């Protein structure tokens, strides 16, 4: 059984066909702000989906705060929420209130109560006027924010974000950064942008399905950047 108050991977491997995307990783993390970096194809997106309980490890076990997130989906909903890169993949209802209410009904709330709670959530976030707005009429950044509110409304302990800043303009990404900084939840963020991780507690550098480094940002990021530069030069 994993640590009761941490994200814990115990000898986890994932294969897609014959390709090993996660290669026997064991790690236990209880820091509040965790960044995951790595080149394309390093396994970091798979890592995010493992922590969110969306893919089945071919070997080993993933637990978050003691919950087996892949097999115990009911408990997983209270434990971990994930926000994907493209909000259009996540928003499945026409209006904002419906979108937020969906996750609540999934947790067993009645429809009327869920709708009322969803509207309250919007008001708490200062977006009370969004309730009946159509999701496709929101801007990209606003849709991201809607995804975040939908997940926060479900009250998970951990929030996983997969490249949340891709495609956002500067103002929107600064706003998102501020919102994330203020969250009480443990945050796991996958990103290409190392600048965003400067004040994080922990950075995990992944390569070829393994953890290369797992330390404070000022320890990991400079080495990571040097390695990426070396690789870029090698291509020339």
């Amino acid at each position, binding site marked *: 059984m994993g640590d009761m108050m941490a994200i814990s991977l115990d000898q986890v491997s994932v294969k897609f066909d014959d390709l090993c995307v996660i290669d026997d990783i064991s790690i236990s993390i209880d820091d509040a702000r965790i960044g995951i970096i790595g080149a394309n194809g390093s396994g970091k997106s798979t890592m995010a989906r493992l922590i969110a309980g969306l893919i089945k490890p071919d070997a080993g076990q993933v637990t978050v705060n003691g919950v087996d997130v892949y097999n115990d989906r009911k408990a997983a*909903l209270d434990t971990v929420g994930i926000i994907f890169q493209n909000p259009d*993949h996540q928003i499945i209802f026409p209006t904002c209130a419906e979108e937020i209410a969906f996750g609540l009904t999934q947790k067993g709330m009645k429809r009327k109560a869920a709708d009322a709670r969803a509207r309250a959530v919007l008001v708490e976030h200062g977006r009370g006027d969004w309730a009946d707005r159509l999701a496709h009429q929101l801007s990209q950044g606003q849709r991201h924010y809607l995804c975040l509110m939908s997940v926060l409304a479900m009250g998970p302990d951990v929030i996983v974000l997969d490249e949340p800043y891709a495609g956002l303009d500067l103002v929107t990404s600064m706003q998102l950064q501020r919102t994330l900084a203020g969250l009480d939840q443990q945050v796991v963020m996958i990103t290409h942008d190392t600048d965003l991780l400067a004040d994080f507690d922990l950075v995990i550098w992944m390569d070829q399905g393994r953890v290369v480094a797992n330390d404070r940002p000022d320890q990991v990021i400079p080495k990571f950047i040097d390695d990426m530069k070396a690789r870029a030069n090698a291509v020339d």
Partner: protein
Amino acid sequence: MLSISLAGNSWAHRLRVGPKMAVLAVVSVALFWVDAWVVLALALLGVVALYASVDGALRKGAWLMKPILWIVGIIWIFHAFRGEYVAGSVVCLRLLVLVGLANFVTLTSRLSDMIDLFLWLLSPLALLGVRTGAIGLAFGMVMRFTPVLIERAGQLTQSWRARGGKRASWRIILPLFITVVDDADRVAEALRARGGIQ
């Protein structure tokens, strides 16, 4: 995704959707036993009066009726060709009344009430083991994705033109489908992340 129904609070809007639909169904069936053109013509006048009693209904109703007029015209010509003037007129009048009434119900009913009624009508399917929750979910998803896909089709059309293609037409359909099935797999994943279909 906006419904074609009219915003408003007329007497017809205030009637509940269930009874409205029930009346529509009964009247539609009854019309097939009416063969007197005079009665049908009076019924059509009655339908026009219904539309006139609701703000904006005449205009929108006429717009909805436009393609139907073609159909009616062709049917009448075929009958006239065989000398069946009265029989042709009966068929055409009945058709106009039917379509007019049905559209009137649509125009004066809110989308959310329609959805509720529909899901209520389907609810007995749960006894047969159908997961009716999935139906409501699917309704929402179509309304959410249609505008997204329209935008996507527009982008593909533009990138087709940008590289010299004159008319994109059907050639954008394959790229559209490829991106859409990729999206669908992501959406299914995101749905599972929030508890899936129960």
